[in-house]
């Protein structure tokens, strides 16, 4: 049996907001939770907020991170909030761990997290893994690689990269009663449960493909032998593209990301441009290997809503008819920007599939992690990757 509930709170006092959100969740749950997931705005003092949550949730396994917007059963939070999901199940054991210092070595941090979680599980066996990394200090794809180094190449991994209300300065991760930064948190699930994963973005390519002729990790230097920024100059016009260089963040480009072809996914894998330097190199939210063919992508609200619903349907269809009992959404901040004040439509479409009353928590991320195409049934084809601009829906049932 799986029981879940979600609480949401906002206000001035960080401690009180944390405590209220947790209390809200626990009141609805009835009884002590086994695990608690916390997503918070960076507007709150992180230590105080977490202490508030902890004062209520006590000894339950606690994981969470800061976000670029919280999502609950009521839809996207309109203001800076703290959202808490409490989960209770006699059939699932939850184990949590952390890998620090992504800046030093992202892959090692990923591996350490998975190892720390595995250590606690009987026989080191996990059934599913949820990760909450920071990607401002390191390459997100490397963190995923590190996690898979430990769990095996084909393992159901989902997650979302922590945010900071679209500032791209510093994100936070929570484990137990401690606040981390530049770290990755892992939550392992062991036991008898069903999990469905939906992954889709709905962005479509425009214009001709361009070849990555020079790149290093997440930094894209040259396309077709010319500075990478040229792709935006061509499409935006030189005047507009200049903004990408002068502003601290390539905000303008976030709703026109880059897409690259990868095996195992119908859709192109998306990469978010984050910053552009003087030379016209683009730093993305995750790596783009040399030799890849990339294209400029464009999105529309209608398409985004449609694919979000399809992703939710895919997730539910993997449950063998089991009813969804808890839903976790990792949704890209770019989608929120695309929707503006209509982001509720997307969550509403997802809820049509997973059930309007099914407890739902999620957040707007700086990158999503999930198997390509959401494949979790045929394990040999379950290849977790680091996504951008994508909605990842994780549904739990029994």
């Amino acid at each position, binding site marked *: 049996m799986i029981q879940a509930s979600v609480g949401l709170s906002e206000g001035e006092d960080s401690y009180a907001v944390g405590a209220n959100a947790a209390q809200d969740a626990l009141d609805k749950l009835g009884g002590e939770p086994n695990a608690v997931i916390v997503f918070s705005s960076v507007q709150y003092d992180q230590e105080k907020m977490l202490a508030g949550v902890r004062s209520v949730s006590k000894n339950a396994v606690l994981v969470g991170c800061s976000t670029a917007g919280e999502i609950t059963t*009521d839809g996207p939070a*309109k*203001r800076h909030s703290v959202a808490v999901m409490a989960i209770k199940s006699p059939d699932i054991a939850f184990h949590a761990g952390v890998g620090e210092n992504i800046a030093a070595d992202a892959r090692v941090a990923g591996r350490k997290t998975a190892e720390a979680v595995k250590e606690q599980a009987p026989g080191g066996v996990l059934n599913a893994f949820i990760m909450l990394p920071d990607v401002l200090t390191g390459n997100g794809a490397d963190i995923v690689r590190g996690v898979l180094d430990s769990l095996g190449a084909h393992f159901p991994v989902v997650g979302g990269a922590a945010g900071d209300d679209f500032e791209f300065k510093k994100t936070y991760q929570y484990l137990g009663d401690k606040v981390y930064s530049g770290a990755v948190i892992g939550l392992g699930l062991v036991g008898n449960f069903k999990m469905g994963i939906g992954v889709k973005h709905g962005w479509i390519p*425009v*214009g*001709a493909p361009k070849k990555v002729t020079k790149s290093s990790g997440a930094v894209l230097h040259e396309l077709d032998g010319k500075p990478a920024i040229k792709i935006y100059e*061509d*499409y*935006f*016009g030189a005047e*507009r593209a200049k903004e990408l260089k002068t502003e601290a963040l390539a905000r*303008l480009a976030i*709703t*026109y990301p880059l897409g690259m072809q990868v095996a195992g996914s119908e859709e192109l894998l998306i990469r978010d441009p984050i910053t552009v330097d003087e030379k016209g190199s683009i730093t993305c939210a995750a790596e783009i290997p040399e030799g890849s063919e990339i294209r*400029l992508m*464009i999105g529309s609200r209608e398409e985004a809503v449609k694919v979000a619903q399809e992703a939710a349907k895919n997730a539910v269809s993997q449950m063998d008819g089991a009813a969804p009992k808890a839903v976790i959404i990792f949704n890209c901040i770019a989608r929120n920007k695309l929707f*503006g*004040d209509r982001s509720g439509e997307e969550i*509403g479409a997802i*809820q*049509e599939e997973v*059930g*309007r*009353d099914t407890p739902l928590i999620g957040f707007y991320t700086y990158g999503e992690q999930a198997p390509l195409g959401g494949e979790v049934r045929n394990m040999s084809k379950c290849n977790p990757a680091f996504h951008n601009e994508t909605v990842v829906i994780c549904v739990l049932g029994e």
Partner: protein
Amino acid sequence: MNKKTQQRRVFVVLLLPLALFFAVAGTVFLFPHENILHLVSFLTALLLSVAIQAAVFQRHIMPNVVELQKFKQIASEQEKGAQMLVRRDLELTRANEQLRKLDEVKSSFISVVAHQLRTPLSGIKWTLNLVLKGDLGALSEEQQTFLFKAYESNDRMIALVNDMLGADRIESGKIRYQFAPLSLLPVIDAVLFELSPLAGAKGVAVQFKNRPEKIPLVRADAEQMRAVLQNLLENAVKYSRAGGTVLIALAAGNREVTVTIKDDGIGIPQEQQKSIFERFFRASNAVKVETDGSGLGLFIVKSIVEKHGGRIWFESEEGKGVTFYFTLPVAQAV
């Protein structure tokens, strides 16, 4: 002479480009000019082969070359088109964002004004009430009549301000919905009861046709649902003619319950039908019948219904009335 010719052997050199499907090869022919017949037959054979090559080129290769050029041109046009579209999209997105900001400013302005108006309006209500009750001395009948008119106008103004605040709360997401399984029957009964004085005064008959004894519970917030029904029914009565009829009906499906509210009043002009759920919208014919009204009621109603996961729509012919329909999802068995 003959001897001389034989001594000086002339060589004829032919250099011919030969097109073979996709490659072009040069062929060199060298032969002695000994026999004119040899030369003629050689040349004939050669010309024939050239002609064949030319035909092959014309037939099979040229079309490919033309196709390829066409394809390249289309690709380059597509690329330019894509660039133009992206630029246009960028411009529109920008403009849209600016409009949204303006809209926010407008909304917050309305919100501030409405809040500020509420306090003095309450003060006026309280004062008028005091005077009307005769607490400050007896009033002549005329004074009483006029003061009562002032009191009523003030009340209408309070209702308008409350609508504005209601719309503001909906837009800014300040409303927390408490969804629970709910029977619509008692809610409708209560709203109808409250409506009866207004309907009676206007001579409008309000009928709950085929009121079922039992109806599936819907997933709804009781207080908000009451606001929806109140708004729609009040509108139906307000825009009915004296002696008109307002009908309310319920229909239950497997997944949703549909509520129908039908009047035979003034209706909505065809050309304005697309705007009726917008904020501050008031139909031109409605303004003539009822001078006040915030134009926010239907906006609020639609927002609430949609927040419940329901839909709302209507049918209307000007002069013949309006029928509103809205659905609510049936509460899932727990």
